[in-house]
């Protein structure tokens, strides 16, 4: 086609092609210019907004959680900073591959993977989930160096909660844990969602839960410029976070530990209250658990060990378990008799060895409880027959009405969550409790049992301690509380938790005085004389034994009853005798009679409280002579 053309012709043909090419170039550049116009003029507002959105990220600044200290400044809960390795699942395509890759850099154990999986399900939004916590500096360096190959993987400095006392006072302090879906719902209901942006942890139990709003603090806001990797490169503005308020407790860690040591490996509870304020000095439930296990999400093995244990270490026996009070109920019954006028301090009774009620024979063989028995002696020696008669004469309604203001069978309102109500028996309670007409019927024999603290009676150690405190405090009853001051994190101001009187029970002072004196004699001449032998102070108290298992007329012989069916051992006590500064209730599950187990624990606690040191535990009373004086 191009055969033997002349050079001029060829050049002209070439020039035509150059013109075509030039037009093509201009057309293409026109398309580009049009595109630029579209992006930079027509769509400018949209892209401008997109660029601004790209640039500024509003990040929450998580506040430091308040610390918790006891009345002497001993730290019970604090924070420390540590590095965690986190994965943002929304930026990772294959989680397993990423975790495998990380496992080649740092140690990732099977339990880390399991915890990661669980947290992944619990995590509130699409945010980072920790795979490893407490990285060493070397591990951090290794990850940082390889991070560019691991999108969605982050190393974060995070604050962790630490409970330096471990198992001690764990039921009081409680613990925090990662926010789960239920927590998110609760936060939403409180209208607190904004304040929890960025928070990973929330109080789950104990004071950590009940004082969550004080401890959490106020989340700050940071406006930062971020790069495409989502990392902050420059701070634009900052509203700092306000740290949570600190809590100073009424609790005395030394006393708490003394009480825990006194209980040892027995199941039981100790509640010690300052009668004049309702401040809780010690609140023990044994066995206990290590709250530090929960902070990072408890491992399956640890959880199994705690939840499957027959000893139920997670149970706060001091406020949640209700037991029949046994003879510790007698001082209150005595007060009821005096206040009702059915009994006077001067009345003396003979032939108290036997009480017959609709064919039932109630026997009391104790030598001090046979003749010339007055109210004082019934408390000192824990006589039963006197109270069978009294209960029968008072009737169940009167008993219930008298006991109610002392807080029996009602939540005390202590500032620790999870309190049980217990049972203050009455015909009304029975009607609501049972289904059939026959079961709902209240029987006179049941009233008689209630009179000596058995039967349907069921109270928490806290309720007994607080009721005792009311008796010691001239009938004034306070809401028990564990927190003494809330310390403002910014101003340092100490906001006192004022003693909150729940009620002033109208009781004649001479009656209260008589009961107090009788209880003092319990520790000098009565059922707890051996327990308080050699004490350099005067104390008061009352032993009690709660039946776990009805023997149906058979004689109770300790050795023949399975350990779990043995009686619970109770002791309520106070000291000093005049102007008591401590009221204590001790329960030892399956501990036998009151002076056997609970009494010595109370002695230990009171010794520590008054003498500042634990005194060697007195020998528990075991000989037959004392056993014969038992309250049963």
């Amino acid at each position: 086609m191009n055969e033997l053309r002349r050079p001029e012709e060829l050049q002209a043909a070439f020039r035509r092609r150059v013109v075509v090419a030039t037009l093509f170039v201009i057309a293409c550049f026109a398309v580009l210019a049009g595109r630029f116009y579209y992006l930079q003029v027509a769509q400018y507002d949209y892209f401008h907004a997109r660029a601004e959105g790209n640039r500024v990220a509003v990040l929450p600044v998580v506040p430091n959680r308040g610390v918790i200290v006891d009345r002497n400044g001993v730290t019970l809960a604090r924070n420390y900073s540590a590095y965690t390795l986190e994965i943002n699942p929304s930026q990772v395509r294959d989680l397993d591959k990423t975790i495998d890759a990380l496992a080649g850099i740092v140690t990732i154990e099977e339990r880390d993977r399991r915890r990661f999986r669980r947290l992944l399900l619990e995590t509130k939004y699409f945010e980072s989930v920790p795979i490893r916590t407490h990285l060493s500096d070397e591990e951090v360096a290794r990850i940082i160096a390889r991070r560019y190959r691991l999108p969605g993987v982050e190393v974060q400095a995070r604050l962790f909660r630490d409970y330096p006392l471990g198992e001690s006072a764990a039921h009081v302090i409680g613990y925090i844990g990662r926010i789960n879906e239920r927590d998110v719902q609760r936060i939403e209901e409180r209208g607190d969602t904004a304040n929890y942006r960025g928070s990973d942890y929330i109080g789950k139990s104990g004071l950590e839960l009940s004082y969550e709003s004080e401890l959490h603090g106020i989340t700050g806001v940071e406006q930062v410029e971020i790069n495409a990797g989502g990392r902050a490169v420059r701070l634009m503005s900052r509203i700092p976070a306000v740290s949570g308020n600190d809590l100073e407790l009424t609790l005395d860690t030394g006393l708490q530990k003394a009480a825990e040591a006194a209980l040892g490996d027995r199941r039981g509870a100790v509640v010690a209250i300052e009668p004049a304020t309702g401040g809780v000095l010690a609140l023990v439930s044994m066995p206990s658990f290590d709250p530090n296990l929960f902070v990072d999400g408890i491992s399956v093995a640890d959880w199994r060990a705690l939840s499957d244990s027959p000893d139920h270490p997670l149970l706060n026996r001091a406020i949640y378990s209700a037991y029949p009070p046994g003879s510790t109920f007698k001082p209150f019954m005595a007060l009821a008799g005096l206040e009702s006028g059915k009994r006077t301090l001067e009345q003396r009774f003979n032939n108290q060895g036997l009480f017959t009620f609709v064919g039932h024979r109630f026997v009391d063989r104790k030598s001090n409880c046979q003749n010339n028995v007055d109210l004082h002696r019934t408390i000192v020696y824990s006589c039963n027959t006197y109270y069978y008669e009294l209960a029968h004469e008072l009737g169940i309604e009167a008993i219930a009405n008298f006991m109610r203001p002392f807080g029996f069978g009602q939540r005390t309102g202590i500032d620790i969550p999870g309190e049980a109500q217990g049972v203050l028996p009455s015909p009304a309670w029975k009607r609501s409790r049972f289904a059939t007409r026959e079961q709902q019927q209240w029987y006179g024999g049941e009233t008689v049992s209630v009179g000596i603290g058995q039967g349907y009676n069921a109270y928490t150690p806290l309720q007994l301690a607080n009721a005792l405190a009311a008796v010691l405090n001239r009938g004034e009853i306070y809401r028990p509380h564990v927190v003494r001051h809330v310390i403002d994190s910014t101003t340092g101001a100490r906001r006192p938790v004022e003693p909150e009187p729940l009620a002033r029970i109208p009781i004649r002072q001479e009656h209260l005085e008589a009961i107090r004196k009788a209880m003092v004699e319990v520790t000098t001449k009565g059922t707890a004389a051996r327990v308080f032998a050699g004490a350099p102070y005067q104390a008061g108290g009352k032993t009690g034994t709660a039946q776990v298992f009805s023997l149906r007329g058979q004689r109770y012989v300790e050795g023949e009853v399975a350990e779990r069916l043995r009686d619970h051992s109770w002791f309520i006590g106070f000291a000093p005798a005049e102007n008591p500064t401590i009221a204590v209730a001790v329960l030892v599950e399956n501990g036998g009679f009151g002076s056997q187990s609970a009494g010595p624990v109370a002695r230990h606690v009171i010794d520590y409280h008054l003498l500042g040191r634990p005194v060697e535990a007195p020998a528990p009373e075991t000989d037959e002579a004392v056993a014969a004086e038992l309250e049963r």
Partner: protein
Amino acid sequence: MSGWRFRPLALIYACVRPIDPYLLLVLGLLLGYSYALMMSASPERLATLQVHFAVALAAMWMVALVPPKRLLSIALPLYLLGVLLLVGVFFFGETSKGARRWLDLGITRIQPSELMKIAVPLMLAWYFHQREGVIRFGDFIGAAVLLAVPLGLIVVQPDLGTSLLVGAAGLYVIFFAGLSWKLIGPVVLVAVLGIGAIVGFGDHLCQPGFDWQVLREYQKQRVCTLLDPTQDPLGRGFHIIQSTIAIGSGGIAGKGWMEGTQTHLAFIPERHTDFIFSVLAEEFGLIGAVGLLVAYLLLILRGFLIAARAPALGSRLLAGAMTMVIFTYAFVNMGMVSGILPVVGVPLPFISYGGTALVTLCVGIGILMSIERSRTAAKD
């Protein structure tokens, strides 16, 4: 030569004479632009950039000193060397990021495909030059084979960007050599229909698992990402989304030099190399972007003028092809960054950071200067 004696002025004149002032002026503007942008996008690279400038300008000047006849005479050996190296890459090349592009010569690593950006148009220009005035249809088939061999070797590496540039360079020579419109027409038609099909039925074609046969999976993904970048905003679509945001948010006048937030917050990937145009458009706005288009247009028009006035066929074809190669670089890069072409690894000519590409482009400018010099020298 017998009467040779030292004449300094004549020597300077001889050295300066081949430099085309118009091309040098536009080139200076572009390099200045590049320097200013690099100060903003990647100031730590400025020192290296100066070295790149010096080397590239020296290469340009040396090429400009060589008459076009000489250049054409080394076309065949250069071409054969290039093909040989590509075959070497095919068998012994180093694999990096899933592509086999590099050849380790022991002393240094080279990327032979870069050489072919010059060698292929040079070879084809020489090929047609040999047949000046007697070009038959069969000669076009021969040219197509000469193009297809190195192109095939580059495609299998794989290297889409270089394949495109080398293929385009060869086709431009064939086009300027006078390939019949009857053949060009259908090819253009097929291309238009193909692009239309992808745009029109993109949703279906981009379904995972749908095999495009001719393109590799990653190349298919690039095209699909172009059609709908929001499908994968944190992955493949990220580059396009971020660069269009940068360009769009620049507005008419731009955010100002060194003030580009997208640039300085590192939202723009490869901001000193392939995506430097989004830095330019963000900081200098529509004015800066159109200014760049004008600069390129001036360069291209000057190149076409040189081609149109060149006396010999080989020079004409070479000048026309070189000019179109520069255009192709510019158009593909800006089209990609502004989101109208798929992401292809093609730098913005004379602006992007990268010594090899700059030297290649400046050699192209040197060839244009050499051709222009040969025309004026013939008149002297």
